[in-house]
């Protein structure tokens, strides 16, 4: 069942007198529960595409629908609410609010959603437990390692109950051990909550765990490959 449908997405911008085609004619359908990787060289349009899907950037042309909602037609305020209730974000770095503890960072989005204190505390503790941060939940970001910070970001993204989690190079700043651990956590939670993940990467370790690899080049989709072995692993799990 299609969760996300992109049709003819284009994103052009000017750089001096030069027009840059960041995205050109992107058509893509992502089903609910998919764990998909956007791959491609730097400048291929991965981050721009994630920004368009996340309502952080507006396309020059085309349509982006999430579960029936036309994202490109939402106004400023509606987009904020859309991101708050429907999406989760994990960025490459500096994901957390420095003045809040790990627990408070995870709770923040749920506070904005208007969830009760008891509900958000229960969910925040649950997801921090799932990402293995029981002992560190009261620490501020400055007292957490890069890998721990990314895990907090994943816990925050999932605890708010989004339909879709967008991760922009989540392992780019992590060492191999931490990157693998983070991907395993994301993969496992994706299956557990049936949450759809789309993440950009050019990290082979990430690609190994993806169930679908969408390759971008010069703003267009070069290939779109579903990897059956991961589906079978998933069915087995």
């Amino acid at each position: 069942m299609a969760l996300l449908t992109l049709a003819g997405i284009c994103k052009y911008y000017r750089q001096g007198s030069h027009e840059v085609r960041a995205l050109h004619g992107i058509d893509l359908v992502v089903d609910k529960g998919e764990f998909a990787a956007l791959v491609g060289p730097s400048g291929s349009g991965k981050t721009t595409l994630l920004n368009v899907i996340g309502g952080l950037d507006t396309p020059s042309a085309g349509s982006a629908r999430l579960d029936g909602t036309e994202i490109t037609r939402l106004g400023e305020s509606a987009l904020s609410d859309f991101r708050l209730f429907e999406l989760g974000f994990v960025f490459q770095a500096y994901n957390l609010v420095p003045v809040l503890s790990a627990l408070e960072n995870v709770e923040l989005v749920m506070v904005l959603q208007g969830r009760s204190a008891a509900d958000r505390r229960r969910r925040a503790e649950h997801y921090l437990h799932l990402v293995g941060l029981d002992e560190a939940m009261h620490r501020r970001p400055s007292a957490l390692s890069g890998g721990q910070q990314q895990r907090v970001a994943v816990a925050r993204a999932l605890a708010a109950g989004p339909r879709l989690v967008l991760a922009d190079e989540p392992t780019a700043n992590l060492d191999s051990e931490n990157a693998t651990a983070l991907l395993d956590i994301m993969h496992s939670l994706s299956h557990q909550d049936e949450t759809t993940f789309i993440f950009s990467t050019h990290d082979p370790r990430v690609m190994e765990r993806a169930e679908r690899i969408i390759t971008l080049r010069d703003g267009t989709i070069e290939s779109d490959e579903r990897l059956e072995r991961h589906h079978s692993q998933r069915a087995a799990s």
Partner: protein
Amino acid sequence: MSARHGRLPVATLAMLAWRNLWRNRRRTLITLTTIAFGFGLSVLLIGLNDGGHNSMIRNAINMGEGHLTVQPPGYLESPANHRYLADGARLSSLLGALAVAGGIEPRISLQVLASTAHNSVGAGLEGIVPRGDSRARMLEPALVGGEWLEEGDARGIVIGDGMARKLKVPVGGKVVLMAGERGGDTQAQLARVRGIFDSRVDELDDFLILGDLELARRFLVGEGADPEREPVTRFAVFLDDPDSVTYWKRAVSSALAGESAVALDWREMMPQLVQFIAVDDAGAYVFLVLVLIMVVFGILNTVLMSVLERTREFGLLRALGLGRRQLLMLVCCETLALSVLAVVTGWVVGGGAHWWLSRHGVDFSALISGGTAIMGTFMDPVVYTELSAGRVWQLTVIVFVATLASGIYPALKAVRVTPVQALRT
């Protein structure tokens, strides 16, 4: 998609603002110290200014015509010896019935020419009750020769040392007081100098002659007044509570309805002094504005730096679903917290200094050895800071609003950033 909306509870807003404020502890402390110091200075300056002015006003009221003056209509605009309150006894009874919280003093003020064998000078003769008048209480300690007037001494006068020098008259010397009559004739009374005072106010020392009511009343009788009706030129009303002037002015005016007399308050009686204080206040306000500019730039610097440093974080918050308005509220709340802290710290510094100086005062006597006479009154050499409740409120609101307003630009700058721009930084 459901029509759910994000919200930022006040408790979370306040918690975030407070923690953000202390992210750069040193910068916030330096800013707070600057603001508190500036605000404290303003409180002191305004307090000293008000203290000095109030001292001048109190002295002017005591040396002059009281908080309220009852006198013939038109006397202020055109003072003349033939303008007097013919039935002083009746007016005294009417005023006495009001049971004014304070005191009422009958007075006779006349313009005379004081002459000796050596010289003649224009003077103001003030007929008073020698032992009950407020001027007597202020000038008796300033006697530098002779003694004070006694009740019923219909020939005795007390003059300032300036006039004594001009007339070349010692204590015990004779002075002829002459006054013009309405018909054009002149009347004269012989007086004897009982004492000489040095008030350090030139206008008093060179011009004032104090005598018993009976001495001055002889001139009114010469103008045709009936001495049995105890004529006077005015009644000076002194109030225990200076803030009750408006109330008592209304009460006295009502009591005098139908009488040929009007009640004026000290502001109407001394318009030059009021104007002088207004001009002097303007100077203090200029200083206050300079301090406010310092305060505004202090806050602007702190909040703007804090905003510019957190561009990426604002992008993150916006990406997570924080609306522009909520972000605006967050930055405004940080400014609000800084403003509240600044005002509280400022009041601790300035209020503490005011508390001490309102009890011990600042002694300016070394700086103003030439006297403190201004506009016909004088300022006590030791000035105590004074701040009325209205002044406290005014200063607080001004600084609070100025600091709050200084956060508007950084707040607008923060909300203008788009998430994509911010996350690229």
